[in-house]
């Protein structure tokens, strides 16, 4: 989010997913696209079939990496030097788009000066990617007319996540591969509505549609509509919320005033947030905890009050996907039992507080969103019905939505080069903790498994926590397929069934966080990116040993 916001001015996919069909080069980074974004992956497969080149940057040899023309199997956490190396090659080979840089960007000289300091041999040593491959990647990406970058959490979930993203933006600007159809920088959002949640200001520092909290005009507009004065102070980030109150938390500033109560909706930080012990301490220290969810999650168990919420199938509303497309979801069944939709729960609470929210339907709520949020100005339910939805920005009823961003100019005016430097991972490997653990998601489960682990078929496909390990490491540890491994970090312990696979590089392990039996986030580190506050889920140091039966 923050990375693209500072460079381009807007933190979302610049292209539409369909535009991938016409790309000549697709660069996929930190994304197990086949499993996490199958609908994007199929377009990539399709355009590869039509002759496009595929470059994958990933420490794991994932399915899409096997499919690539070029797989840069970098050492985790070395995106910035790798990208700098690629950009240096582009400069060396004179593949820079001078006109684009001149007309559309700023701060290029700082960028160029930095790149000229780069030593490719050193990059190769840091990243574990050969010079030859770096140069090849540079040529393939820069020489094509329509190159697209797709990246995902493998890029952002690092302490230098913002800087990682900026490096990809730098690369795109250096070659003029942005601001046009069929070429751009596309962050793939993890969940069906994470984009929508951000758009609706589930962020600490903005109002809906990324309108500034500090802008008196904006504040006034909301005041008029809602009839109340909006607080001027920014909120706190999720990690500060779940770790800030804990007496044991390291690396987090104690909040000026500790949070005393929380209302958590559809989120299960007791499995999904790093440093679960801290999260638990924080939640237990609260005076009052309310959780609204469709099942009694690990977090809901700690709550004073639990609201039974309705599932997606029981309500009408919109979701916004990666490509900024707002889509209407139709109610399939009426809410089961005593459950209520989130808006009904919130309205109920608000009215007990003495503030009546009288919306007769979610269409009426959407009308208010249209009124107050310029990005969503024309997203009325009747327009979304019976169609594939509209892509923001969509200013009014006559606006057809926006296929790709930054047409003619970047949202922030000129695109800004942000030179980045290598940042070592927060937790280096050591003799005691020699393995690097990467965490991610599996195909058959969603997030903390609240829903998917209740499906018999999905559970049959994936029924227990696995850890992926290179066969050589397995051999050294005396492990065979199906053996149990105990994995320890400085913070916690989990047991996994081992899968020996050459998807992994030696010395690196991979697991997903869907299983409460192996709460992986007791292992992960709670250090995070200083800007976006996104935790370093992708790297922590662990040791592994066979569990004797």
């Amino acid at each position, binding site marked *: 989010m923050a990375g693209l916001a500072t460079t381009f001015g807007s933190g979302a996919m610049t292209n539409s997913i369909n535009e991938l069909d016409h790309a000549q080069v697709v660069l996929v980074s930190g994304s197990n696209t086949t499993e996490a974004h199958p609908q994007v992956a199929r377009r990539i497969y399709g355009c590869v079939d039509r002759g496009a080149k595929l470059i994958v940057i990933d420490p794991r040899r994932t399915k899409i990496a*096997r499919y690539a023309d070029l797989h840069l199997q970098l050492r985790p956490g070395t995106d910035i030097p790798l990208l700098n190396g690629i950009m240096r090659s582009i400069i060396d080979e004179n593949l820079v788009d001078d006109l684009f840089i001149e007309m559309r960007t700023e701060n290029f000289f700082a960028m160029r000066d930095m790149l000229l300091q780069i030593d490719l041999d050193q990059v190769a040593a840091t990243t574990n990617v050969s010079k030859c491959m770096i140069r090849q990647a540079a040529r393939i990406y820069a020489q094509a007319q329509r190159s697209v970058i797709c990246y995902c959490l493998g890029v952002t979930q690092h302490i230098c996540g913002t800087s990682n993203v900026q490096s990809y933006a730098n690369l795109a600007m250096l070659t003029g591969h942005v601001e046009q159809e069929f070429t751009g920088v596309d962050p793939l959002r993890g969940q069906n509505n994470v984009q929508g949640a951000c758009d609706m200001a589930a962020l600490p520092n903005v109002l809906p549609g990324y309108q500034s909290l500090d802008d008196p005009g904006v504040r006034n507009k909301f005041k008029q509509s809602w009839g109340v004065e909006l607080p001027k102070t920014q909120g706190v980030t999720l990690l500060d919320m779940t770790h800030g109150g804990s007496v044991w938390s390291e690396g987090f500033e104690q909040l000026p005033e500790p949070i005393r109560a929380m209302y958590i909706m559809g989120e299960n930080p007791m499995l999904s947030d790093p440093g679960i012990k801290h999260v638990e301490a924080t939640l237990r220290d609260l005076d009052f905890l309310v959780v609204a969810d469709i099942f009694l999650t690990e977090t809901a168990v700690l709550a004073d009050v639990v609201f039974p919420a309705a599932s997606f199938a029981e309500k009408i509303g919109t979701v916004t996907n990666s490509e900024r497309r707002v889509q209407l979801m139709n109610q399939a069944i009426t809410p089961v039992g005593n459950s209520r939709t989130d808006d009904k729960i919130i309205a109920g609470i608000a009215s007990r507080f003495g503030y009546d929210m009288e919306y007769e339907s979610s269409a009426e709520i959407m009308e208010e969103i249209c009124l107050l949020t310029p990005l969503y100005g024309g997203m009325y339910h009747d327009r979304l019905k*019976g169609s594939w939805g509209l892509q923001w920005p969509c200013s009014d009823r006559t606006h057809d939505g926006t296929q790709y961003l930054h047409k003619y100019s970047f949202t922030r005016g000129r695109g800004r080069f942000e030179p980045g430097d290598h940042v070592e991972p927060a937790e280096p490997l050591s003799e005691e903790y020699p393995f690097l653990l990467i965490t991610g998601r599996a195909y058959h489960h969603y997030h903390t498994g609240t829903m998917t682990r209740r499906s018999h078929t999905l559970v049959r496909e994936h029924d227990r926590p696995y850890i992926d390990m290179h066969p050589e490491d397995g051999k050294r540890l005396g492990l065979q397929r199906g053996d149990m491994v105990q994995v320890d970090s400085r913070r916690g312990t989990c047991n996994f069934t081992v899968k020996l696979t050459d998807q992994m590089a030696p010395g690196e392990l991979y697991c997903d966080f869907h299983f409460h039996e192996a709460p992986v986030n007791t292992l992960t580190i709670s250090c995070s990116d200083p800007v976006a506050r996104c935790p370093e889920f992708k790297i922590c140091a662990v040791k592994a040993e066979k569990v004797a039966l």
Partner: protein
Amino acid sequence: MTGRYLLAKDHLVPLLRKIAKSNRLVAPVLNEYGDTLFSHITDLDSAAIDLAHQPQNSLKSFFFPQTEKLSTYLVEKSPKTGNVRYNFYPHTVENQPTAYVGVRSCDMFAVMYTDMTFLHNGERDNYYQKRRDNAFFITLACNHPFPNCFCNATRSGPFLELGYDLQLTDLGDRYFVETGRSRGMKIVEQMGQFFKPASEADRREQFQLALEARGLFQRNVHVELASKILQEQDEPVGIISELSSRCQDCAGCAYVCPTCTCFNIADLPLDEESGERIRSWDACTFAGFSKMAGDHNPVQCESQRVRKRFLHKLLHDVAKHGRPSCVGCGRCVDICFGGVDIISFVDRVVKTIDHCRDVD
């Protein structure tokens, strides 16, 4: 004995209204989101019956629901002995006579095919049979095959010669009606006011349409040749790995396939003392499909699973039933976003064999 009649298009809904007095109606209905689906019709006047598009679902779920309760069980601990008592109570199927209207040849053929599995393979599945016994079919011949259709290649359309009760052919302002099974004849007899005898000219017109329809297929799929090749030799190397690398393991192909009837049975505990035994659609492309106790799996990798599905359709079912278990409806082609569909497979098998040039 086939009778031939005409039914004015204006009379279709009035006819259905009469039929609906003693039957439930199921027909392709265009819903408010623009999808055409076989649906129960509760109100004939408000339902938008859509005979112009291929329904996205087949009739499979009407005979074999996606999930279905087989029984309820109780587990009681005897306070005296501490022993467990364990009893099952069967769930009986609620079903009433149903008229399935606007069923195209592929889907009708598929019902006949699934009959072999559920009724004639060994044991009779009483859940399926109850629904099947209640079924009455008014089929619709396909004058205009859809883009991914290839029922001509699987010999299951576009016009039917058997299986239906009544088959309608669209002759513009009227339907040409053929009676198949005895129930169809009975309808014509009971509701004679709607039907008038067809002339020889009408019959010729229908015959002409049937001929033309055969020429309108956009896909040329050599299903029989592929079956023959597979009988003679292993499938050419590389095809399976190429296709399986695109398979997302979503089972969409098996779920939309009108002849894929594999199912799972699982217990769903309701509390400590009771639960339900549920059966649900399953798919051989799932890794867990053949997984045995202790994680032993005779069908190991993804490519083997994809292979198994295609060979089952084109080779093993030919050996068992004398014809492939594909009816050419094209739904797996529509739904698979990896292109891992039966046409891709057939095309690749045929393409790699030299003598395919001699065909057609």
